[in-house]
């Protein structure tokens, strides 16, 4: 393009830009005011009070048989419980500052209650929360809180432990496989719980852990599943956001499978043993209820909330049809002990892969300690980067 046309085009665009900015000049002034006001003026209103809308942001797709589907079902429950409330959703929101803009947009659209549902949405949510003290934030899986931001999660490792027990009972080779994404504490904690569960019924059981480096890459998942089964693993578990591929692959290869996040028994009629799932529906509705009434502060949700197996916020699904009754019964017994508090999966001594004592004899780790897991227990085969 020659210089002349380009400068003409240039001028045109410039004029357009100036025109549009000029036109909207009146709009410019109130905008910063709303930001500034929010900090001082409205501080008296409790966050989330009488919110006309609620926003949900998801890190992946809503129907992935996994993490996001579980959260999505929760948002559906909220929609059903509050027919007059607008439910705003945004899928595939990356775990970067990008999420901040999405939340700001939702707030602009009236949301005073926001659910950032992935751990990586925490920092952006904290930033937005600082700017909007009148908005209540419920962050899923975080460890930090703020005045108007609480975090919630479930002790999913409890059902995962039970699934490990079932896997240990069912496995013939004693070799279990765990397909995971990246070495973050939630993941390591689950792998450890699973191995401890399997170990409790079969001391020789091992869990081979394979990282895929991604939360949802079906090609890599199928590779990993095949590779594990080839090496003699006969029960596959996973910690991925989308769980369908691994479950179906293991079913086709004739291996048994443990689900995660969502009940996928229909995908594996033969090999399904059981799965650990979230039950956010009642919790989400209760959280929204609390915030709308203006009772966010001082409620159990304004800090770190962890839903337990005993509260039915994390669950173990029904056992598959191929699981013998004695195994079903045994797992039920263990579940009862866990709920009653007489069984504690991580009670010391817990040794890591190197044989070092992580939790000493008689020691009972706190939830915070567990959620900062940075090791794999003995019996897990695999390696985490230092």
């Amino acid at each position, binding site marked *: 393009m020659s210089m002349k046309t380009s400068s003409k085009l240039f001028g045109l665009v410039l004029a357009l830009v100036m025109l549009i900015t000029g036109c909207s000049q009146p709009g410019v002034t109130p905008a910063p005011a709303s930001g500034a006001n929010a900090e001082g003026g409205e501080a008296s209103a409790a966050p989330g009070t009488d919110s006309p809308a609620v926003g949900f942001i998801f890190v992946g797709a809503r129907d992935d048989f996994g993490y996001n589907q579980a959260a999505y079902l929760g948002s559906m429950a909220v929609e059903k419980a509050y027919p007059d409330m607008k439910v705003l959703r945004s899928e595939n929101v990356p775990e970067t500052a990008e999420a901040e803009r999405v939340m700001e947009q939702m707030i602009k659209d009236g949301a005073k209650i926001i659910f950032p549902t992935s751990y990586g949405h925490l920092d952006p949510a904290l930033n937005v929360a600082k700017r909007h003290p009148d908005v209540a934030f419920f962050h899923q899986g975080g460890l930090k809180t703020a005045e108007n931001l609480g975090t919630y999660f479930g002790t999913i490792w409890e059902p995962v432990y039970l699934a490990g027990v079932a896997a240990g009972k069912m496995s013939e080779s004693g070799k279990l496989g765990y397909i995971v994404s990246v070495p973050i504490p939630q993941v390591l904690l689950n792998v450890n719980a699973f191995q401890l569960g399997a170990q409790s019924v079969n001391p020789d059981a091992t869990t081979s852990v394979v990282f895929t480096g991604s939360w949802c890459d079906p090609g890599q998942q199928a590779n990993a599943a095949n*590779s*594990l089964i080839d*090496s003699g693993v006969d029960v596959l578990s996973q910690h991925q956001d989308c769980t369908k591929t691994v479950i179906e692959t293991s079913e086709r290869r004739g291996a048994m499978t443990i689900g995660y996040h969502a009940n996928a028994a229909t*995908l594996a009629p033969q090999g399904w043993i059981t799965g650990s799932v979230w039950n956010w529906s009642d919790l989400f509705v209760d959280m929204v209820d609390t915030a709308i009434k203006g009772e966010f502060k001082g409620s159990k949700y304004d800090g770190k909330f962890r839903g337990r197996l005993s509260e039915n916020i994390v669950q173990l699904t029904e056992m598959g049809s191929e699981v013998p009754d004695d195994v079903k019964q045994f797992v039920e017994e263990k579940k009862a002990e866990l709920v009653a508090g007489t069984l504690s999966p991580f009670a010391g001594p817990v040794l890591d892969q190197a044989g070092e004592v992580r939790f000493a004899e008689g020691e009972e780790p706190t939830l915070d300690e567990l959620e900062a897991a940075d090791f794999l227990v003995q019996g897990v085969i695999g*390696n*985490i980067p230092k």
Partner: protein
Amino acid sequence: MITDILTGAIRSGTSVMYASQGELISERAGVINLGTEGSMLCGALGGFAVTVWTGNPWLGTLAGGLCGLLISMIHAFLVLTCGANQLATGLTIMFFGMGITSFFGRGFVSEQIVGFNPVPIPLLSEIPFLGKVLFNHDPLTYLSFILVPLLWYLLFRTRLGVILRATGEREDVLFASGINPQLIRYAAVLAGGFLAGVGGVQLSVAFTHSWVENMVQGRGVVAVALVIFASWLPFRAMLGAYLFGAAQALQLTVQQTGLGISPFFLFMVPYILTLAALYIVERKKRSQTPEALRKVFTGTSAG
């Protein structure tokens, strides 16, 4: 263990292999198509969707190939008719493919299909070692075994092959013999798109039985790189694709041994291996680059 890695190499290399054979045809005619990634995505979704609707994976394969072809048609039109820059157009197609498939694919994430399943070939699959590595795969994989020699024959033993290669090397000769090189180029790009689409189908309908947004994850890009590594020879491209697949399988096997290597290094291995292979091959010779392609690379054609 070696059996497992080799089997894994073929399993995870086949989709890349289809795409790279397609890209090879296109590049032989002088058109590089970075949109292969987009074609694979469209193929993966199209194939999956039609398999869901009809329950017939072969129809799905056809549909997936056509989807890949359709999107490569945009590439062909823009590059050949409008004279747009090949690399920029290809990259745009890659983005467009991601957008369009994640849009239309939303409803298919939770769908279940029967799809293609491994069919052990009687007798042959009984052979120790080789049987397991070669003769226990899905039909699309077997088809790819036949495709490569066929393509080689087509390229080097038929008149059509001579014409195709001449299109990428010496246009003037073609003009002299009354053949329109544009037409050949169009056909080559479309054929390439079709094969890339079939590669996508292999991934979604045969290998994973799933559709997920952006599930190709760079395999199309690797396919393009492999063609250069292969010096535009079908058998070498096949080898390259299996090498890439083997690197992925090896990576997983190494993880299971519990060796103290960070998984993140292992994730890089397939890509670094591809780069290293390219470096070694390209250093030695470059004379085989189709003339028309070299112009693209050196920026002397198309702006």
